């Protein structure tokens, strides 16, 4: 940053002329990606969501027809409902669970490294692997249900993957297994940054530890919580691989997700218009998460 200040010294002009072309050429991939892919492709999709595109993209504009059809499709409505339920529950659970794990690990435990390795390793695996493992554990014949029945409790039922009412809970088990470790590690890092004096002060005042956590420490950790929230939330919107591997949307349409709707519309059903409209809705929802956060973050920075 201060390099620019330095460059603003007398020799500014010639330097711009001679040196900067190389930097601009070097930064060309970034410029192209920003302009062509992130802005260009997004706009292209948004624009084409107002067309009659079917097998091929068309330029015949039909207004909001695709959106009307989209919001009249049962499968899309189910996808939106599923992601709303899954999203809220997953967000709350991973923040709460992640914080509890982080707080426990912050108690100067022995073998902290081992615990950290254990809670974070699923994060290194792909959603496909995660989905297949949990599919196996939740398999009604061989998994948990089968074992408990084998113990003699014949009527025991635990088959969340094949019950439309519980399939999202099954997905949650797998999703939390994969992602909570990351939240815990982020929050643990933030906890390590909390001033020791706060603990000393609350001890002097005789405040119980849990109260200190809730009323003092959590507010201090707000930035870390915000980061974790944005990470989880944007990850949830994109949720695709896990559904494909774990349930493939089933049973019926009980675990369909918007990202899967987009993929199926574009590549299986030759219904591009629906895919464009659905993905535009996904973009809108991300913006609804992102813009308040950006205002909060950058507004805060300016004031500070």
């Amino acid at each position, binding site marked *: 940053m201060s390099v620019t200040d330095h460059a603003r010294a007398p020799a500014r002009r010639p330097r711009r002329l001679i040196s900067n072309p190389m930097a601009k050429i070097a930064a060309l991939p970034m410029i192209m990606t920003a302009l062509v892919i992130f802005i260009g492709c997004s706009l292209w999709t948004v624009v084409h969501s107002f067309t009659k595109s079917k097998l091929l*993209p068309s330029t015949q504009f039909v207004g909001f027809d695709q959106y009307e059809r989209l919001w009249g499709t049962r499968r899309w409505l189910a996808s939106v409902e599923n992601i709303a339920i899954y999203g809220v529950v997953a967000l709350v659970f991973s923040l709460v669970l992640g914080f509890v794990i982080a707080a426990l690990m912050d108690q100067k435990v022995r073998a902290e490294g081992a615990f950290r390795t254990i809670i974070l390793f699923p994060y290194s695996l792909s959603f496909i692997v995660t989905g297949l493992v949990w599919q196996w554990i939740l398999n009604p014949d061989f998994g948990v249900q089968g074992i408990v029945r084998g113990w003699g409790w014949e009527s025991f039922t635990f088959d969340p993957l094949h019950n439309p009412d519980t399939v999202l809970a099954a997905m949650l088990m797998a999703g939390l297994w994969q992602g909570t470790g990351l939240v815990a590690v982020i929050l643990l890092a933030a906890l390590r940054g909390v001033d020791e004096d706060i603990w000393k002060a609350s001890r002097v005042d005789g405040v119980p530890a849990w109260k200190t956590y809730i009323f003092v420490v959590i507010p201090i950790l707000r930035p870390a919580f915000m980061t974790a929230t944005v990470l989880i939330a944007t990850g949830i919107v994109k949720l695709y691989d896990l559904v494909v591997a774990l349930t493939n949307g089933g049973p019926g349409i009980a675990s369909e997700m918007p990202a899967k709707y987009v993929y199926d519309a574009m590549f299986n059903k030759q219904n591009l218009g629906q895919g464009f409209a659905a993905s535009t809705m996904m973009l809108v929802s991300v913006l609804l998460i992102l813009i308040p956060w950006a205002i909060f973050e950058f507004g805060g920075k300016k004031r500070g």
Partner: protein
Amino acid sequence: MVDLSQTYTAPRRLAGAEGAKPKRRLSGNRIMIYGILCLISLYYILPLWVMVMTSLKGMPEVRVGNIFAPPVEVTFQPWIKAWAEACTGLNCDGLSRGFWNSVKITVPSVILSIIVASVNGYALVNWKFKGSEIFFGILLFGAFIPYQVMIYPIVIILRELGLMGDVWGLVLVHTIFGMPILTLLFRNYFASLPEELFKAARVDGAGFWGIFFRVLVPMSLPIFTVAMILQVTGIWNDFLFGVIYTKPEAYPMTVQLNNIVNSVQGVKEYNVNMAATLITGLVPLSIYLLSGKLFVRGIAAGAVKG
């Protein structure tokens, strides 16, 4: 809970000799903390345990046994079958094909994306030009755009370039979508290096590439390692781009794995499926276990600022 442990450790340091007593007092709390942590660990470990155990059993034992129980008779047959014989559609040459496809995709993608992103980060820190921060802002913002919004136009672009279905098309896609986080990583790292280095090299007459290769790269090995870990695991685990931008014969491992396990036809061989799942997870898992803190640093660098 915590205040107890703190008050007892402080006087201990002063008194010196009374080391044993406070420890005993703490144990109640400590046992609870360790108990909960162990329970949580169990939730994380058990699936891995189940995978390994199932993959080492023969099918007859899988059918009658408990998935948590260790195999009575250890067999590596499922692993061999998963690697060399498992079927996807008409092809029965196992996961090995997917593995080598993934290698062919991952290696060039990691190299290209790191080169591009490190040069970007360097230009952003040391050679700012008009609008560079704006492009960077768009790039970061792009990290949050759902891929689904951009996948179809990219199909068109790749088709125009003649790269659709080609490994190099997928490499390009990975380079593009890895760029935001990697550029951020490199930018933050280069910005933390003392500026005098850059100035001194300038005075000595080094140019854009000279400074980059001879001054910055040699002292940035840790961040290159972090970027590599981040990219290898990310690209190896990708499913969406692989399934869209490659042809079935070039499918990466994750896609092939899903096709093997979730195929409807044939008798399900759970032991082979678990072996296949483990083989696919082995690469990122070993990178994670070997790299330890660097892995955490990579995701934290991405996470905290992203």
